[in-house]
């Protein structure tokens, strides 16, 4: 069963992929990473992209930031072609990518140094207002008093919390998360889901989350898009009906489990069948 109910274009539409394809290489070696994909994401939505590896989930994130260009089709962000309207984007990856020569606080403040309109005021406010802002964010993710530490003095889970702060400090309209909790243990991961949900409910950015974890997708997202591979394409797009704030207990209820089961079957069924010799 597939439930492809494409969202209509409204004034709330924030991201729109229209017949986007993306191919790498040329000639015989050409690889289609993304084949004829359509996706609309509303302002303030939390959309999870799930699917087998190599299905182009991360490719969609890069297209939306304009880091790569679509081979065909159009990517619109905030009503215009990507790159035309400068919007504030926050990003977090599986690898926290902290700069080792800066303190955790300075790492978190890095986007303020780069992104207008903050960058013009960075020199004047880095010791007062911006510093306070970084500290209050760090406190919210449970890293109060860790601002002066250097990244190597923190554990993986703490670094990932700091990485979330860095992705959010410049109040991004769009937050792109590429398996940010993928390398963490189960308990840390569940803790960070709660942190993430809280931050999202408070700041309401539009979020695209790439993940392999269906429970994570169910816990965090308002919509889950299932992708298939070769070529990458969205094959299922379903709303997640649970009320917020969601809890871990909720993920053990019958409706939640049957939802993740359905998603799991969808993904497994696309796995290429092993050829028997």
């Amino acid at each position, binding site marked *: 069963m597939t439930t492809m109910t494409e969202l209509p274009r409204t004034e709330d539409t924030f991201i729109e992929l229209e017949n986007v394809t993306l191919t790498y290489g040329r000639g015989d070696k050409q690889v289609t990473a993304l084949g004829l994909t359509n996706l609309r994401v509303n302002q303030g939505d939390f959309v999870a992209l799930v699917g087998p590896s190599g299905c182009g989930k991360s490719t969609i994130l890069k297209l939306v930031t304009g880091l790569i260009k679509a081979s065909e089709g159009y990517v619109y962000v905030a009503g215009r072609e990507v790159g035309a309207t400068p919007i504030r984007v926050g990003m977090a990856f599986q690898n926290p990518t902290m700069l*080792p*020569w800066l303190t955790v606080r300075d790492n978190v403040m890095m986007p303020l140094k780069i992104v207008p309109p903050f960058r013009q005021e960075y020199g004047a406010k880095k010791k007062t207002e911006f510093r306070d802002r970084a500290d209050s964010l760090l406190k919210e993710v449970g890293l109060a008093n860790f601002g002066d530490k250097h990244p190597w003095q923190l554990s993986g889970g703490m670094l990932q919390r700091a990485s979330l702060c860095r992705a959010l400090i410049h109040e991004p309209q769009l937050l792109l998360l590429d398996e940010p909790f993928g390398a963490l243990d189960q308990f840390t991961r569940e803790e960070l889901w709660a942190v993430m949900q809280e931050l999202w409910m408070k700041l309401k950015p539009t979020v695209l989350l790439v993940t392999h974890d269906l429970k994570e997708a169910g816990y965090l997202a308002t919509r889950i898009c299932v992708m298939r591979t070769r070529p990458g394409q969205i094959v299922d797009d379903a709303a997640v009906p649970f009320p917020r704030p969601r809890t871990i207990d909720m993920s053990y209820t019958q409706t939640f489990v049957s939802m993740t089961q359905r998603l799991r079957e969808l993904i497994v069924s696309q796995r290429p069948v092993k050829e028997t010799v």
Partner: protein
Amino acid sequence: MSPQARRKVWSAVLIVGFFVLWEALCWLFNVSDIIVPKPSQIIVTLWQRGPALWPHTLQTLYTTLVGFGFGIFIGIALGVLIGSSRLAYDVAYPLLVGFASIPKVAVVPIFVLWFGSGTVPAVLTAMIMCIFPIVVNVATGLATTEPELEDVMRALRATKLDILWNVGLPRTMPFFFASLKVAVTLAFVGTVISETVASNRGIGNVMMIASSNFDVPLVFAGLIILAILGVALYAVFSLIESRITGWAHRKDEFAMG
């Protein structure tokens, strides 16, 4: 005594021991001054000829530092260029390696031809000696910047200059300082080569004249002065390095500071 203090005392004892052994062997085998002078004799020479040697020492130090300064400047510029552009890498690298393989003593006459003998060719020789390690290290540091880091910055719409300034260059600092320690000793080599060939001042020139007079203790005194200058500058840059790039060695003092 703490293990650290003990280690320091031992290394000092062994270094002094090296000179004592040298002295003892000279006595034992009755080595002529013309072949290898004794350390005690070198010290006496340094003491007696000190006032005459001092201006030459300053000259060599000055020449080396000026050449080294230019070398750092050009080295960073070339390193940034090569490390951030594929084309520059492909063009400049073979040229640079080729140039680095030329014995510098062969280049000095050309500099003398262009600028006359004296300080200028010595500065230039010191400079070209120390450029290569700086360029290679800066370029390597920049070229090995993690792509995710750049993605984070590019998603923030950082300009190339922003990325270079905030990510590329700080990341390159440990490579850069490692190269400075090598480069500063090479700069001395360059200065002395040029002074030996074409100058009437500097330690290189003093040693040249002393060896033609068979004043071997003075030649060795010159060597010792060069060695001391080299070690001193190496130590200075080591200190600066550990202050600035403590993060790369994960030093606790750095974390506290």
